[in-house]
C-alpha cells in the first residue's frame, strides 16, 4: 500500500513535468500548426534561468575570514550577505522560487523572438521541414548553453525549509515511515496551478476565446477581422513560459545539464501523440497517465514479472495507441490526418 502510494506520487510528479511540456507543444501545434522540436530546449532554458538567477544572487567577493586566526584566510562572501545580512542569505536560499520572477519575462521574450525570427517562416513548409529546422535550433540552443555552463549538471538546491521530506504517512493515518520530499509535492501543486491557469485563461478570457476559435477554424476567425497571427504569436510566448516554468521548478529535482531538453522532448512528443495532436486536455491527461504508468512499471514486482518493461512502457503504449487510435485519446477529427 505504501509502495503504491509512493509510486503514485512519483508518477504524478513525472507526469506533471510531461504534462506541462506537452501542453505547450500541443498548444503551439493546435494554433500555429507547427511541430516544434525545440520545445524541449525551452524547458532546459527554463531550468538554466534558475541556475543563472542563483549565480547572479551569489556573486561573491573575497573577504578576510575572521574565524581563522593563525593566518589571513579568505572566503567568498556573496554581496547580498554583505549588504543585507541574514535577509540576503534568505534571498539566496530562495533562489529557485524567486527565479520564476526572472523566468517569466525572459522565457516570454525568447518565445516571441523564436516565433518572429524563425517559426513564422515555416508555417507554409512541410511538417518534415519544421521538424528539421527546429531540431537544428534545439542543437544550437543546447550547444550555446553548454558553452556558457559546461557539460556537467549544476546542482540547484531548493530552499532549506522544504529540502526535507513531508510525513504524508502520518497525515493519512498510514505508517510513519511513509515520507515524500516536500519539493516534489510543491512541484505537483505548482504544475496543477499552471495547468489550471492556462485552461482558465483559454476558457474565461476574450483572448482565450479567440485562440480557441482560431484553433478550430483559423480562416474564419481571420475573416471576422481579427489579427489571428498576432494572437498566435503570443500563444507561442505563453507556451514558452509554461515550458520554462516547468524547467525552473524542476531544477532542484534534476540538476540541469545541457541535454535535459532532448531527453524530455522525446517523451513529451510521445505524450502529445498519445493525448491527440492539438488537444490540450488530451496532453494533460496523457502526461499524467504515462507518468503514473512509468512509475508503476518500475516497481520491482512488475519488473520481475516482465523484465525491462519500465524502460519501454511509455513507448510501447505510444505505439499501441498510434496503431489502434491514430487520433490519440482525445484528438479531434481532421487534425493531422493526411
Amino acid at each position, binding site marked *: 500500500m505504501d509502495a503504491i502510494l509512493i509510486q503514485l506520487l512519483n508518477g504524478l510528479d513525472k507526469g506533471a513535468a510531461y504534462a506541462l511540456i506537452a501542453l505547450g507543444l500541443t498548444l503551439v501545434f493546435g494554433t500555429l500548426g507547427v511541430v516544434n522540436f525545440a520545445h524541449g530546449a525551452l524547458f532546459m532554458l527554463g531550468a538554466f534561468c534558475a541556475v543563472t538567477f542563483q549565480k547572479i544572487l551569489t556573486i561573491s567577493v573575497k573577504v578576510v575570514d575572521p574565524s581563522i586566526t593563525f593566518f589571513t584566510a579568505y572566503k567568498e562572501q556573496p554581496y547580498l550577505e554583505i549588504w543585507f545580512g541574514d535577509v540576503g542569505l534568505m534571498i539566496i536560499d530562495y533562489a529557485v522560487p524567486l527565479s520564476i520572477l526572472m523566468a517569466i519575462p525572459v522565457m516570454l521574450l525568447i518565445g516571441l523572438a523564436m516565433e518572429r525570427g524563425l517559426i513564422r517562416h515555416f508555417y507554409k513548409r512541410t511538417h518534415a521541414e519544421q521538424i528539421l529546422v527546429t531540431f537544428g535550433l534545439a542543437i544550437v540552443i543546447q550547444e550555446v548553453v553548454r558553452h556558457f555552463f559546461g557539460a556537467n549538471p549544476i546542482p540547484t538546491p531548493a530552499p532549506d525549509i522544504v529540502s526535507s521530506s513531508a510525513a504524508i504517512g502520518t497525515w493519512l493515518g498510514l505508517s510513519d515511515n511513509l515520507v515524500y520530499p516536500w519539493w516534489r509535492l510543491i512541484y505537483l501543486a505548482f504544475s496543477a496551478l499552471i495547468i489550471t491557469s492556462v485552461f482558465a485563461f483559454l476558457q474565461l478570457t476574450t483572448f482565450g476565446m479567440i485562440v480557441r476559435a482560431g484553433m478550430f477554424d483559423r480562416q474564419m476567425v481571420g475573416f471576422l477581422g481579427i489579427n489571428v497571427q498576432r494572437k498566435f504569436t503570443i500563444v507561442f510566448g505563453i507556451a514558452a513560459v509554461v515550458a520554462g516554468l516547468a524547467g525552473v521548478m524542476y531544477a532542484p529535482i534534476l540538476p540541469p545539464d545541457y541535454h535535459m531538453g532532448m531527453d524530455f522532448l*522525446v517523451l513529451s512528443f510521445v505524450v502529445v501523440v498519445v493525448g491527440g495532436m492539438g488537444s490540450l486536455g488530451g496532453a494533460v491527461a496523457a502526461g499524467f497517465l504515462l507518468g503514473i504508468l512509468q512509475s508503476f512499471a518500475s516497481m520491482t514486482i512488475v519488473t520481475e514479472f516482465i523484465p525491462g518493461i519500465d524502460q519501454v512502457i511509455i513507448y510501447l503504449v505510444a505505439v499501441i495507441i498510434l496503431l489502434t487510435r491514430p487520433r490519440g485519446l482525445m484528438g479531434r477529427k481532421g487534425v493531422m490526418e493526411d
Partner: protein
Amino acid sequence: MVLEKKRSDLMTMLMFSLVVFSMPIWLDPLGANYPDLLQKFAIFGIFAIGYNILFGLTGYLSFGHAIFLGVGSYTAVWSFKLLSMNVIPAVIFSVVLAGIVAAFVGYVSLRRSGIYFSILTLAFAQMFYNLAYSVLTPITNGETGLQLTLEDPRVIDRLFTAAGEGLPSTELFGLSMSGYSGFYFCAVMLIMAFYISLKIFNSPFGLKLKAIKSNQHRMKYTGYNTRPYLLSAFIISGMFAGLAGALMAVTDPLAGAERMQWTASGEVVLMTILGGVGTLYGPLLGVAIIKYLENIFSAVNEAVLQAFFTFLPNWLQDVMVMLVSPFVGEGWHLTLGLMFMIVVIFLPGGVIEGFQKIKKRFSKNNNLKPEGE
C-alpha cells in the same frame, strides 16, 4: 536507348569507383588522407545512401535508423566472437539481421505517415536504446559495450588455427582489416551500395517511391497498394544501415548502445539534408562535408586560432580568437547546428540545389533566350 542507358550507368560507376579508390591520393593535399577518416567517409556514405532511399525517395522522415546501425554493429561483433574474425560472415549476418529488424519496425511504423511515422520510429529508437542498456545487457554488454575477449570461442577459426596470443584483429582471408586495407574494403562496399542505389533511382520501383512522395493519395487511386513499396524501401535502407554498422565493427571491433540513440539517427538526417535529399550524390556530399569539417573543426583549439590570426594586430587577434573559439573544438556541434539550420531555411534541397542554382544563373546569362523555348 536501353543500351545507351546501360552504357551511361557503366560510365557513372567507373567514374565513381575511380573517385572513391583514389581518395587517398586526392584527399592528401586537403589533409584528410588517413585511414580512420577515409573509413568514416565510406561507412557514413553507405548509411546516408541507404537513408536517402527511404527519406529522399518516399519523403518518410525516420528517426529510427540508428537502430539498424546498432543491430549491425552488435551482430558483427558477435560474429567475430562466436564464429570467425573473417569479415564476410559478419557483414552478411549483420545485413540480414538488420533487414529482419527493419522489416518488423517498418511493418509497424509504416501504418502511419507524416509526423506520426517520425514519432513511431523515434519511439522504437528509444525502446531499443533503453533495452540495450538494461534488459539486453547479456547481448549488448550494457554501458561497457560489446568487445572481443580472449575467451571467445570463434569456432570456425579454431578449426584451422590454434588461438594466438592477444586479441586477434578482423581480417579478410588473412588480410588484416586495419588501416588502408580496411578503407578499401569499405570502399568496395560503398561502391556496391552506390550501384544498388543508382539502380533503384532509375528503376520503376524508384519511380513508384517518388510517386509516393509527390502524392500518395493519387498513387493509391491509380490502384497501387503503396505499403509494400514503402516497406521494401524501409527494409533496404535498414539493410544499408546494418551494413554501415557492420563496417564500423569491422574497422574497430566494439559496439556500444550510444550508436542506437535517436540523436545518432539525427546525424544521418543532417548529412542527407545538407548534401541534398533525394539526389543521388547529395547524401555522399553531405557526409564528406560534415565528416571533413568535423575532423578539422574539432582539432582546432585556441593556440591554433592564435597562430591563424597572427597577421592581425594584437588586439584584433584576441577579438577574433574570442569570436571564433566557441565554434571550434568542443563547439563543433554548434557550427553543425547552425549550418544545418541555414541549409534547411535557405536551401531545402541542400548543397546540390545550391550548385544547380548557381549553374542555372550562369547558363541564363550566357544565352538570353526567353524561357519555355
